[in-house]
Structures are given as structure tokens and as C-alpha cells.
């Protein structure tokens, strides 16, 4: 749903999402890096488990919460991608 049209002269940044190897361009936010790698849906909603993705991209909506390097509830649209980041999807809590 999003692609990167320009010649990516900026260095490529390897990271993982759900254990899967991905690449981003330096300077991208985590949310943009994930979308550029084809990962739109970032989490399940906490009540119904419905799929959710980044909505505002400016830190307001908190829809893009992901786990980054073991830190839960990080706003993917605010954090810059770094080499080797391990990003995970957040699921609805078990038993609910």
C-alpha cells in the first residue's frame, strides 16, 4: 500500500518484524519502515482483537503501538529505525 519511489542512496537498515528479516532506509520511523516492508497491520485491538494499523503518523492516535527490543507499547511513528531492532506485533491479552 506504500512504496518507496526514490533511489535509496541512503544506507539500508536491517531489522526484524516478528522474526522476519526486513530492510528500511536510514532516517525512517519504525512505522514507515514497517509499511515500506509491506507490513500494514501492526497489532490487534485490545477488546475485539480487530486488526489495527498506524492512523495519524504524528504521535496522537496510539494505533501503531508495537514492541521494540522488548519494550512494549512503543509508538512506531515516533521512533527512528535502528539496525538490528527486533520489532513485534502486540496481540490481545490472552484469556480475554
Amino acid at each position, binding site marked *: *500500500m*506504500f*512504496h*518507496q*519511489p*526514490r533511489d*535509496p542512496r*541512503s544506507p539500508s537498515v536491517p531489522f526484524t518484524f516478528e522474526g522476519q528479516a526486513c530492510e528500511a*532506509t536510514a*532516517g*525512517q*520511523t*519504525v512505522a*514507515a*519502515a514497517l*509499511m*515500506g516492508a509491506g507490513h*500494514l*497491520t501492526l497489532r490487534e*485491538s*485490545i*477488546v*475485539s482483537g*480487530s*486488526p*489495527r*494499523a*498506524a*492512523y*495519524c*503518523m*504524528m*504521535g*496522537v*492516535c*496510539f*494505533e501503531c*503501538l508495537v514492541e*521494540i*527490543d522488548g*519494550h512494549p*507499547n*512503543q*509508538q512506531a*511513528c*515516533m*521512533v*527512528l*529505525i*535502528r539496525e538490528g531492532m527486533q520489532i513485534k506485533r502486540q496481540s490481545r491479552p490472552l484469556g480475554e
Partner: protein
Amino acid sequence: MPSYPEYDYVIIGSGPAGMAAAVTARQQGLSVLVLDEQPAVGGQIYRNLEALESDRPDEFRKLGAEYQTASELVRAFRQSGAEHLRGRSVWQIDPDLTIRHLGLVDSGTTVPSGCRAKRLLIAIGAMERPMPLPGWTLPGVMACTAADVLYKSSGLLPSGQVVLAGSGPLLLLIACRLLDAGVSIGAFLDTNPRGSLLKALPLLPDALKAAGYLTKGAGMLWKLYTSGIPVHSGVDGLEAVGDEQVKKVRFRKEGQWHEVETDLFLLHHGVVPNVQITRQLGCEHRWYEPQRYWEPVLDEWGNTTLDNVAVAGDCGRVCGAAVSELSGHLAALETARALGRLSPTGRDAAAAPFRTQLARQKAVRPFLDALFAPAQPWLVPENEDTVVCRCEEVRVRDLRTVVQHGVQGPDRVKSMIRCGMGPCQARMCGLTVSEVIADERQLSPEDVGYFRIRSPIKPVTLAQLAGLD
């Protein structure tokens, strides 16, 4: 208690207002710290400006003349000697103006820190007004500025077909940018109610003082209407349809429903002040009826109702980048006066040229605010299944039910059905909750009031808190 560093002036936000305030405050010899949670200076409007100018000069030039002017402001800010901390989220401000902030995980440390301010300037800008409609939580439905942010800060463009819906200058601007970039647009759905222009016309003569805005707007409309993409006006119903992500948009026009396929559905219903910090601090707010939002009560220098706390830019009233920049200069001059660096007459003399420009730049606003008044179908969604609180998945029906059972205001709604209690802390539902309660009770949102916003205004873990003091 840790001993946090103290500054004459702490500014939150490094958009046009924050940068301008920092430049002027430094000229007056004040010590200045600017905090911003974004990765780069420029705010949303001039997002990623420095990197665009140096790394993507062709694209930078296409963004328009305002960007060239803004880059001068950024340079002045960089040379001002103001301290600048990026990637810091403010999560609490104490009454004594201790500002507590956290680092984002990319900065290598998430340790909470803080600073103390003799005077505080809140310049955190605006946010898009939520536009609740059935299906708006589906992946692939986004606020229209999200597409702009993705392009400016990360070089991403939508692939597939885009549908835009809503009203306001920003939607037009983004539609035009997408057209320029060769993005395929399936439809432009204009939700501005018919007759808006007539209502706004009496305000037009004054708006002509800032004719630049109007010619720019006319140019964008011309581009849109001659582009060949389907433009539908008078749209008064919208739904996003899909299972795992949005597949099509249903829209109603003159009583008939139509469908258009889409890969990305961009919404825009105007822009409202981000009042999260002024509310957490306890500043007084008032209802601004033309645009149906709350704004902090400010004097002509941007002072709030709290001592030593001021506001500049769009988090006071949405007036755009030029006005924001001017209001930043004015707020800094007032701070210089309050801290004894300038006499009242010295302040007024320095402020005079800014005030002249401000009057001219503001002249267009009453016209624009009337022309793009928010439309009822997305203030109070008619489909009762519409999700209002996206975090806790509270629907219009749930809200109406608790109000029918005697609940009268947002805070009671929150304690009853968790509406507004999720991580966004009512940023995405607050205005709609007040509108729906008001509609159910046949009152104005002004009478119903707004959620009480409490610290922490950004998620902070217990572990982080435990390491605090």
C-alpha cells in the same frame, strides 16, 4: 529528588512557534531549552525540513516557497544557542513547572529525566480532528496528513488507488501533492455541506487582506477539478468497508449510496488544537464555536490563566504556520519582560512589527473557519455502530445508552464504560464524546465539558517510574 537543570525558558515543540520563540528569547539573553518528541525540528508542517533540503533538494523545491522561508527560520534556530533535545516525550508537568520527560527507545535511553522552567511555552501544535465513521479503524484508513508525513519524513508514496474524503485546505493540499507525485486517486469526496460558501461570504472582504491564501486555494481547486479524477461534492455519508484492511469506500450523495474501490482511504475533517498539555496543567479552556473545539484561554501575548505558562501557535487556536511563528516571537518578548530583561515599553516596541504582520495573516481565518465549519455527520455519527473511542472500542450506541441512564459528562462516561481511558487518553475521542453527550442531552458541548486529562500524558512504565526519584 533529583536536581533537574533550570532554564529561564522551556519550550515544548520545535515547529514554527517553538523555533521563533527560541530565536527571540535567545536574542534577549535568556537560557532556553527546547524539547520535542519528534525526530527532527520543523513540527508537522515543516517536518524533516533539514534532511529534505540537504538530501532530497528536488523534492524540497517542489514543496513550495514557504519551505524556503522556513529553512531560514530553522537556520536561525540552529544558530540561536538554544539547547534542543529531540525524541523526548513530556509525560507530566508539575505546578512548580518541573517538566518530566522520557526518551524514546531509539535514543538509547528511556530513563526519565526532567528540567525546571521559570517560564514555560507550550507550542505543541495541532492535530487532525477525528472523523469517526463506520470502518475507520480498518488498516488502510488514515488521517490525510499521515500520507504527507510518510512522504516527507520517509519518502514513501501510496501504491494502488487512493480515495480522499472530507473538507478543508489541508485535504486539497495533500490531494494536489499526491497528484503531482503521480499517485492514482480513485475519488475526491468533498463533505463540505452545500451552502457553506454562502454562509462564509460576509467574511470574505476581510479575508482579502490575506489574499495569498485565497489565490493558493483557488489554484489548488483548479488543479483538482482539471485533473480528471472523479470529484464528488455534497457527500454526507461515508463508510470504509473491508475485513483485514479497507477494500472500498461507500459514500452517500443526494440520498444515493455509491461505492469506489480503494487501497488507501485518507480522511480529513479539519485541524484542532492539541490541548493535552494545557489540560493536564489545568489551564482554563473555552469553546470555540465556529470550529467546534476547545482552546486555552489566552491573552494577547499568549499567556494562559496559569502564572508563567504561555501558549504559542496552533495549540492555542489553529491559524497556520505564519501566525504560529509570529505568536512565538510575541510570547518570547513577553517572557523577556516577565523575567526583567525588557521593560513593558521595550517589549511593545519590539512587538510592533510582529503585530502588524499578525493582523494581516489572521484576517483570512474567520472566512476559512466559516467556510470549512465541521460537518454534523462526523461530529455526531448517525450510524450508532460507529466506533468513537478507538482504544477501548466504545460505540455511539454505548455512549447514548449510558447518557440515557443518567450519566451527564465525559468523566462519568469514562468510569462507566472506559471510553477515553486507553493509551491515546481521549485525544481521538474526546471531541466526539462531548458532541454525542451534548446531542443526547440537547445541550452544547460547551455545557457538557471535556474529559479531565491527567498525568501521565504519555505511556510510562512502572519500572521507569520506580527509577524516577
